[in-house]
């Protein structure tokens, strides 16, 4: 549907530059959403530095690195299954991303009850994840893994494990609180009065980000 005005607009690279350089606002999104994107970019750097440092000390240490699939194995029904707990945790977290997406969807339809319900389910999955992580920490601590050393090999194994999963766990816990607050606001009709559920999506961005980071931790720490 090309109008005359559209035909006059610059195209290609120049058009992109002009769109971005528009007056008032560069991106047609709410302030909170823009800010969340920028925050997540900054947070990406935090986790990248954590992971890079972990990889560096893993290479610099002179002792053997414990075998993750043995350390993180659980004995279920008399059989030792490698990484089973982590697999379940990962599954739960990814499922929670699905329910979060549904919450955002219901939000755009202004379906108050369903949005709140989906947010609560997402928060519940998040809390389950944190609970299972606490279980995993306890198990490792019982086996003698400490931040400063462990019976299986390089001390950096325990240090990186507690630091990185701990930091991620804090993010998930903060996310659970954030989701609960958002759910409460949805339920109490705050966004109906405001006329828009945009903010639910902002919480969603954060939640998906935390999930995505977990995928990287999973790949670099548990699978390597």
């Amino acid at each position, binding site marked *: 549907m090309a109008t005359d005005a559209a035909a006059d607009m610059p195209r290609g690279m120049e058009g992109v530059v002009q769109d*971005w*350089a*528009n*007056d*008032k*606002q*560069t*991106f*047609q*999104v*709410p*302030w*909170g959403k*823009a*800010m969340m994107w*920028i*925050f997540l*970019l*900054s*947070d990406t*750097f*935090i986790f*990248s*530095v*954590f992971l890079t*440092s972990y990889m*560096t*000390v893993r290479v*610099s*240490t*002179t*002792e053997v690195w414990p075998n993750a699939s043995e350390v993180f194995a659980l004995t279920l029904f008399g059989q030792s299954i490698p990484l089973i707990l982590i697999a379940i945790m990962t599954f739960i977290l990814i499922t929670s991303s699905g329910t979060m997406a549904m919450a955002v969807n219901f939000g755009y339809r202004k379906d108050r009850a369903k949005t709140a319900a989906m947010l609560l389910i997402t928060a519940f999955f998040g809390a389950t994840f944190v609970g299972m992580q606490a279980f995993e920490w306890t198990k490792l601590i019982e086996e003698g893994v400490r*931040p*400063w050393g462990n019976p299986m090999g*390089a*001390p*950096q194994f*325990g*240090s990186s494990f507690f*630091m990185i999963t701990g*930091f991620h766990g804090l993010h998930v816990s903060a996310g659970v609180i954030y989701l609960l607050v958002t759910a409460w606001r949805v339920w109490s009709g705050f966004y109906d009065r*405001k006329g828009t559920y945009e903010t639910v999506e902002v919480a969603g961005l954060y939640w998906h980000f935390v999930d995505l980071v977990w995928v990287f931790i999973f790949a670099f720490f548990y699978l390597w």
Partner: protein
Amino acid sequence: MAYVAIADRDHEQHLHDPQTFITKYIWSQDHKVIAIQYSLTAIFVGLVALVLSGMMRLQLAFPDVFSFIAPIEYYQFITMHGMIMVIYLLTALLLGGFGNYLIPLMCGSRDMVFPFMNMLSYWVYLLSVIILLASFFVPGGPTGAGWTLYPPQAITDGTPGAGWGIMLMLASLAVFIVAFTMGGLNYVTTVLQARCRGMTLMRMPLSVWGIFVATVLGLLAFPALFVSAVMMVFDSLLGTSFFMPAILDRGEQTAFDGGSPILFQHLFWFFGHPEVYIVALPAFGIVSDLISTHARKNIFGYRQMVWAIVVIGGLSFIVWAHHMYVSGMNPYFGFFFATTTLIIAVPTAIKVYNWVLTLWRGDIHLTVPMLFSIGFLFTFIHGGLTGLFLGNVVVDLPLSDTYFVVGHFHMVMGISPIMVVFAAIYHWFPKMTGRMFNQTLGKIHFWLTFLGAYSIYLPMHYLGILGVPRRYYSMGTTDFVPESAQAMNIGITYSAILVGVVQLVFLVNIAWSIFRGEKADPNPWKANSLEWQTPDTPPKHGNWGPDLPVVYRWAYDYNVPGAPEDFIPQNTPPDALHPAGRDHGKAH
């Protein structure tokens, strides 16, 4: 339905007008008040750092006189001086202070997008300053690890403040980063999303561009410092070995094993180099605006200036290891980082040429802000040229860790941004307070500071070439350093004391003018950018009265042929320039 920009939606504009003294000046959410709170706190800690440097200089000039400055204290002073100057003074003042004040006013916004978070940012910053200063009063005193805080020595016994001091320093830095993030997210989002009508990105004054890109750098560089602070705290408190290799401490094997000290250096400088630009880019931006305004001429090459800021910002993330040529890293790295370092000189040189070309045949008014801006050009060119020496591996090796380095970085990131800070304070003082400062005192302040600073740092380059090492509390007796070096050291100290004392002139001038200064014109420099066009001076809460300004042009229309005056404010509509009945062709 057409998309309505957020700034135009009524319900987003719920500014709560502050009622009481407390909500107006203390728990204020007004960006202008927060800016002033940031600035005053930063200037206060800056004075602490200045006093510390004076004591170091006294010790260097008269090594046996001051019994309260032993090597331990010297290290503590040097560390606190360096860290305060770089982070708690310059970063906080340029971004928290000028960023807060200028972004909404120059972009035509009513406030930052999230004023409450902006307020929190200041209070958390204040907390970080308190934690930092508390380290002077804990057992063992502040850390003496040097501002670079390199482990292993930073946390091993024998380094001053290896227990409490370093922990407080790391805690304070972490808290500062939280404060910076809250402020920084606001600055970036405000610039991107809350400009007024007509204010396109390519019409923004360069001050905003500089502050904007610097904030982005901060948001991406501080994470590295944050994470290394966390890891160092763990190494020290929990006994992990992230940065600590297996080492002997006074003959005994420590419990550490297998960590990487070089990793810390990489992380520190991945933050540390962009940090240089975090203080430099706002200074670049501000000085561009001041030079253009006070030379009554449009900035030469506006687009180039913008792109240079952006390109410098991007490149600053891939040059960090030029601080590590002597660290024992792979020599091929040195080759790579020397190349990127020299490439960054290109956009920087473009900026310098453009400043000089802006001055060329301009109608230069030697006002106090202009004097400081020109002073900046000298110190910055000087520091930039010595940077080319240090950026080359072979030249850096003998100069590394000598006074040449001290001279270089004080020129380029110490004195240069400070020159711009003074220029900016004098420039915007009439807008902030509604009063004029005393010009004569300002000029005295400039000449003594500028010449004094030169006589501090110029000789240091020579000392460095002689081989005088940095971070030594006294030169002692070394064969390769001639006697005369000490005479020069004494001279440097006299200049340093002079420069320190001269700052009183500045403080007195400011303090006196706030209350007694002449009433200032709303636009005393006849400048174009929006902050000078506010309905009230100082601007009220909400900045613009009932209606947001509308922008029709860039901020550099000075001496436009045919215009009724020698400047055209950004919000002057085109038809206001050619009033009916007036033949504007006559002007030719």
